[in-house]
């Protein structure tokens, strides 16, 4: 295995108006790997994803991207309010100048993956429930078949059953297409389920606290072993104990 990592962040740092929110970030995502990024609210996870995807400018450190096409599921859905669900999903295809006729089939395929009905596709975002909006955003991210996906807490608005199905979708999609990704979440169960490795960010964003390999690979772990691993990690691993003590949102 001498394949180079698809994403490599070296000594990355970022400041908003002089206030340093990220420093000394060294993260690599291997080819075909989904890396979970966890950390308390406000520690700079979204900022990290935005810098490494190129939305925010790099001021400090270096980024090497070796993937072809990326997509992001934003923490806020970022749908265009004036466009229907179908038009929103088709947006990356429109930007890639794919003819209208061909877009249709891709949109239907992506919508089916996230369990959106054709009737929902002609609705505007205001007419969709929060979970449906989130699923529309997920479909938009998958529609152009990216080989790297940034997931910024994508499933927070979904109910338990749907959350599970969407996690399964990410897992199977990642396995089938060898899509690598950076998966931001608060939920250690979710992180352990979808990711190969888990990286914990410092609470103040100044550095990485540590990395843990989750045994097995996504999709092949049974629910029992996962539950066992998470319970053990929370109880005995100082890395997670420290993080999830201060994170009020993890208590669910």
């Amino acid at each position, binding site marked *: 295995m001498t394949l180079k990592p698809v994403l490599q962040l070296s000594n990355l740092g970022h400041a908003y108006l002089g206030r340093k929110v990220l420093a000394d970030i060294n993260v690599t995502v291997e080819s075909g790997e989904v890396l979970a990024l966890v950390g308390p609210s406000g520690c700079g996870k979204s900022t990290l994803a935005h810098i490494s995807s190129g939305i925010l400018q790099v001021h400090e450190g270096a980024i090497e991207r070796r993937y072809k096409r990326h997509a992001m599921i934003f923490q806020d859905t970022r749908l265009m309010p*004036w466009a229907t669900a179908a038009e929103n999903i088709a947006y*990356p295809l429109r930007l890639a100048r794919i003819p209208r006729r061909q877009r249709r089939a891709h949109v239907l395929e992506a919508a089916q993956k996230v369990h959106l009905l054709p*009737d929902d596709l*002609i609705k505007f975002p205001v007419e969709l429930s929060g979970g449906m909006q989130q699923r529309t955003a997920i479909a938009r991210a998958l529609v152009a078949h990216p080989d790297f996906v940034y997931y910024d807490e994508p499933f927070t608005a979904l109910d338990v059953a749907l959350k599970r199905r969407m996690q399964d979708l990410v897992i199977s999609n990642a396995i089938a297409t060898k899509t690598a990704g950076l998966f931001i979440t608060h939920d250690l169960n979710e992180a352990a389920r979808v990711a190969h490795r888990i990286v914990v960010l410092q609470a103040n964003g100044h550095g990485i606290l540590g990395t843990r390999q989750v045994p097995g690979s996504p999709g092949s772990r049974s629910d029992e072993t996962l539950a066992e691993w998470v319970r053990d990690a929370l109880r005995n691993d100082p890395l997670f104990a420290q993080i999830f003590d201060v994170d009020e949102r993890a208590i669910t």
Partner: protein
Amino acid sequence: MTGSTISNAMTRALVDRGARALKFIWGGWAGLASFALFCAVWQAGFETYGAFILPAPLEVFSTVFGLLHIPETWALALTTAKRAGESFLLAVLVGVTLGVISGHAPAVMRLQKPLLTVLLGVPPVAWIVLAMIWFGGGDGTVIVTVLVAATPIVLVGTAEGILSRDRGLDAMGQLYGAGPIRRFTTLSWRHTLSHLFPSLILALATGFKVAVMAELLANSGGIGGALSDARTNFDIAEALAWVVMSVGLLIGIEYGLIHPFRAELDRWKTAAQPWGVKK
């Protein structure tokens, strides 16, 4: 599944359009009611002050109908409509271009703000006098006056639309590979358009009012010129008839052209409101 989706979408589009048409007619009823109220107050004014000060609404409307039978009336109305329309379009062109630039460049915005305050503060009458000196009493005077009065309105509306765009959407477009131009055409411009309509309607109304006023003062034909003649002859019924006609012309253009376009663009705003519920 594809087939049924398409037919679903088509039925929905048809039903939507029908509902919008009905809503429009429903809005017409409300308009009619307020029109009736207006006429009642007018009639009361007539009965208090007499026909020399305020002719009865019926008399004015019959004068309007009488005038409508004369071909020359249409020519006059057309002259005014053409002047107002042309300068409105010109104002939109200039205002939108400058607005887009200043919406993206805060420095330009800051530089032109005092200038806009001055432009909006100078009464149109002052411009008419200046334009009469510069251009004499023709089309030029009317068009320049309307342009000066309407352009700042469109400019400010456009700039505010651009400034209030969703930066999150911009970032989303950038992530999916849209450069500045495509982000503008697919995201900010669409957002701005929805914001722009109130200013467009205001600019059109201003255009008409100022055009009639400029015509009257410069005595350069059109509805304003006819109004000036009616005043000279102390024919109050005819003067009011011309006022009614210019208002009718404005309403015709606004509801015939601007509103249907706006309804088509703002479908997403009305989509979530149950039918018939209006705020």
